[in-house]
C-alpha cells in the first residue's frame, strides 16, 4: 500500500570512522503514513540499491522499541519529535507531505561513527562490566521468596531497569554525559537488598569507567530525561550523586 507523502531527507553519510562525513539530500516519494520511520528508510535503501548506489547504514534490530539498537538523531532530536518513543516506533504520520527531515547519528566523543548513522556504543558495556551487577555465581541463590522486597521499591527498581541502553541521553546532552544511563543501573541495584553489599564499590567503579570513556560532565539541564524513550527519571542521577559522595567518604550514611 503506497501512500501520498513526498519528502526530502538530508542524511549523514560517512564511509567509516576515519573519514569525514556530510549531509546528502534524498527524495522519497509515495510514503504511507502507516510506515515506520525505519520502513521509510527501507524504501529509500531499496531505491538506492536499484540505482546501484550504496544504501544507508543504520542500526536496528527488534523494531519494537525494546532492544535499544536504533539510534537516529531526527531534526535535532534523538529518536525524533515524539516523547517516549524510539526511532523504530516513530511512524510517518508524525510528518507532513513536503517536509524536509534531517537525520544524523548520535554525536558524542565516546560514540564514534562506524558508518553513516551507526555508532559504536561499546563504552556502555564497559561501564556495566565495571560494576553494573550483583556478584552472584550460578547456583548460589537462596529461595526467591526468602527475600521479600516492598512493592514500592521493586516498582521503582523496575522503572530504573527499563533503560534500553540506546544512548539517546548522551546524544541529547550538550556535554555528552552518560549520567542518566549510569544512574539508572546504579539506582536499580541500590534500591534492592541484593545490591547492598557492593553498593559503594559499584558506584565508584562505574563512575570511574564512565569518566575514562570520555563522557562529559553533568550540568543538570535535564535534556537527557526529556529525550529518554523509556522515561528514566532525573531522580536517578540525584540518587547516584548521593551514593557517590557517600561512597567516597567511605560511609554507609548519606
Amino acid at each position, binding site marked *: *500500500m*503506497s501512500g501520498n507523502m513526498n519528502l526530502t531527507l538530508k542524511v549523514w553519510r560517512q*564511509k*567509516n570512522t576515519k573519514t569525514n562525513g556530510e549531509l546528502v539530500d534524498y527524495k522519497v516519494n509515495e510514503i*504511507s*503514513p*502507516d*510506515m*515506520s520511520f525505519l*520502513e521509510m528508510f*527501507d524504501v529509500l535503501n*531499496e531505491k*538506492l*540499491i*536499484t540505482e*546501484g548506489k*550504496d*544504501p544507508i547504514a543504520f542500526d536496528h*534490530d*527488534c*523494531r*519494537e*522499541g*525494546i*532492544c*535499544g539498537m536504533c539510534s537516529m538523531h531526527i531534526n535535532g532530536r534523538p529518536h525524533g519529535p515524539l516523547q517516549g518513543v524510539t526511532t523504530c*516506533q516513530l*511512524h510517518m*504520520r508524525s510528518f507532513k507531505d513536503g517536509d524536509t527531515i534531517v537525520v544524523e547519528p548520535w554525536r558524542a566523543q565516546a560514540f564514534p561513527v*562506524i558508518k553513516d548513522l*551507526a555508532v*559504536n556504543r*561499546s563504552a*556502555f*558495556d564497559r561501564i*556495566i*562490566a565495571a*560494576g*553494573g*551487577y*550483583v556478584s*552472584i555465581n*550460578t*547456583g548460589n*541463590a*537462596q*529461595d*526467591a*521468596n526468602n527475600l*521479600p*522486597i516492598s512493592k514500592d521499591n*521493586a*516498582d521503582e*527498581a*523496575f522503572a530504573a*531497569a*527499563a533503560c534500553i*541502553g540506546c544512548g539517546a541521553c548522551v546524544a541529547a546532552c550538550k556535554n555528552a554525559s552518560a549520567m542518566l544511563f549510569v544512574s539508572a543501573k546504579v539506582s536499580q541495584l541500590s534500591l534492592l537488598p*541484593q*545490591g547492598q553489599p557492593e553498593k559503594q564499590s559499584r558506584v565508584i567503579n562505574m563512575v570511574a569507567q564512565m569518566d575514562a570513556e570520555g563522557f562529559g560532565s553533568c550540568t543538570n539541564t535535564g535534556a537527557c530525561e526529556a529525550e529518554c524513550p523509556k522515561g528514566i527519571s532525573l531522580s536517578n542521577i540525584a540518587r547516584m550523586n548521593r551514593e557517590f559522595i557517600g561512597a567516597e567518604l567511605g560511609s554507609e550514611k548519606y
Partner: protein
Amino acid sequence: MSKLDAKIPEGQLETKWTKFKSSVPLVNPANKRSLEIIIVGSGLAGSAAAASLAELGYKVKVFCFQDSPRRAHSIAAQGGINAAKNYQNDGDSVYRLFYDTIKGGDYRAREANVHRLAEVSGNIIDQCVAQGVPFAREYGGLLSNRSFGGTQVQRTFYAAGQTGQQLLLGAYSSLERQIGMGAVQMFSRHEMLDIVNVDGVCRGIIARDLVTGKLERHFGHAVLLCSGGYGNVFYLSTNAMGSNVTAAWKAHKQGAFFGNPCYTQIHPTCIPVSGDHQSKLTLMSESLRNDGRIWVPKQKDDQRKPIDIPEEERDYYLERRYPAFGNLVPRDVASRAAKERCDAGYGVGSSKMAVYLDFTFNMDRYGKIEVTKHNIHNADAATIRKLGKEVVKEKYGNLFDMYKQITGEDPYEMPMRIYPAVHYTMGGLWVDYNLMTTVPGLYALGEANFSDHGANRLGASALMQGLADGYFVIPYTIGSYLSNEIRTKAISTDHEAFVVAENKVKESINKLLTINGTKSVDHFHKRLGKIMWDKCGMARNEKGLKEAIEEIKSLRTEFWKDVRVTGTADEFNPELEKAGRVADFIELGELMCVDALTRNESCGGHFREEYQTEEGEALRDDVNFAFVSAWEYKGEGNFELHKEELKYENIKIAARSYK
C-alpha cells in the same frame, strides 16, 4: 537404521537428572583453565551459559552480531517465565509443569528432557532474583504470578510486559561481570559464518568482524550454538530483523542433524499486516486473551464499524467452538480458528485478514466491580466504562500504547484488529540429553535446538528453557565431554581445517558480491516468505508443499544469478550480512517443506489439511509418527531422514481436547 542416541540416563524419570549430576565426570579447576569454549549468541541461553561456564573456570569466548550482547532478541519477550514454585498454593508441582508441557507440545517432546526442565525451573527464579531482576511483586513483598494458556495454575513470573528484557539484563550483567574479570572475551558485531571440524570433532568457528569485514579463526575445545530461532524464514515474523538461521544452518551442512524443522509456532494475537512496506510484525501478548473476547461479524463483508454491530450479529467463534477453554485455547488452535474465519470471508479491516479482540465486555465488567467497590449508586454506562478502562489500563497499558503507536487507532475505543503471525520455531538442531548435536563437541542451546517443546510451545516456556539450558544444564553436561578433553592441546588456527574453512567462507562472500544482478536481497526474502506463509504456514497440504519445494528450488537458482549485493567485503556492510542470511533461509525453507510433507499427520503447530477430524481439529497419528524427525544434510536439496522414537513411559498419550 538410526544413528541417533539420545543418551537418556537410565532409571526412574524423577531421579534421572539427580543421578546424572552426581555421576557425571568432573574437570578439576586447573584443567578448566586450559579448556576453551566458544559460545555463539548472547541471548538468554548464551549469556547464561557464558557466565556460568566462566564462573566455573573455563576460558570462554562469546560472539553476537548486535553491537552489544544485551540486544539479543530475548530482550523482546513480553509475557513471562514459568516455574513450578507453587507459591500460589494452587496445586502446582514439578510433575504438573512437566505434564502440561508434554501435553501442550502435543506429545512430540522427550519426557526426560522436559522433566529436567521442570525440575530446574524453580532455581531459575531464585538465580534471577539474586541478580536483582525486578520481578512483579505483591504488596506483602513476595513474588507475583499470572496465568498463561494451556494450564490451570498460576505459575508465570513476570516483570510488567518486559520479562525478557529484565531476564536478559540479569544474565547480561553476570556476563559483563565475567568480561570485566577477564574470564570471558566478548566479540560483538561479529557473525559466525561456519564451524570448523577437525577429524570429525568441532574445534572452532570462522567469524566475520562486521565492522572491518575481516574473517577470523577461533579455536575451542567445544562450541555452543545459542543463536536463537529461524522464524524470519517467513520474512514477516515477530522476530528481530537480524534473527537468522545461519549459525545453525552452517552447522547442519557440516553434519549436525536438524530436528523437526517444520514445527513453527504461529501466534494468534499480533498486529495485522498493514501494507507492502511492512518489515516486521508486532506481538500483542497472550495475556490479553484473559480479558479480550475474539469475534468476527456473522455477516460476510460487514462494512459497519465494530461498535455499530449489535451483539447478536457477532460470532464469538472461539467461545462457540471451544466452550470449555473459550478465548484461552492454546496458540495453535486459536490461530487456525482465526484463519478459518478469514478464509471463509468473515475477516475485518481493509485487508479482511484480521479479527477483533474486544475489551469492552470486560471493561464494563471491571467497571461494575469498581462501582460496587466505591459505593457509587446509579452509575451511568459512561461512568462504568470509564472506571473499567482504568482497570484495563493498569493491566495492559504499555501494550495498548504500542498498538496505538503502530496502527494509529485507540484500542480503548475500538476493538483491536489482530491476526496470527510467525513467532517461534520449535524445530532446531537435534541434540541429545547433554545438548550435544550429532557433531561431537558441538552443542545447541535455547531456541536454536529442537528439544523440550514438541510440536507446540506453551506460553512463557521459552525463557524458562533458554535459562535452564544455560544456567543449569550445560555446566553439568559439558563435563562429560570436556573431562575427556583435558589432554587435547589448543589446536593452532593455522591448522589446515581452519584454512580450508576460511577460504570457503571467503569464496561464498565473493560470490555474493560479484553476482551484481538486478534485485535486492529483500526482494528475494519477501518472495521466500510468501511461499512459506502460503504453503508451509498455518495449514499445509501435499500439493502445496510439493509446489513450494519446486518454487524454492527455482528461487534459489534465481537468487544466485540475480541478487544485487552492494558494497565490499572489507567494510561495514549490512546488505552483505542480509544476503548471507537469506541464502541460508532459502535452503532451510526447502527442508521445512520436505519435513512437513513427510509428516503425514497434524500435530501442534503442524497442521496438514488432509489430516483433520470432521470438526476441523488436528488429527495426530501416534502409531506412525511418534518420533522426532532428524534430518541429515546430503548435499544441496538432498536430506536424509533419521527417526528418534519417542517413548512415553510416564504419561499416557491422549488426544488433546479443548472443547
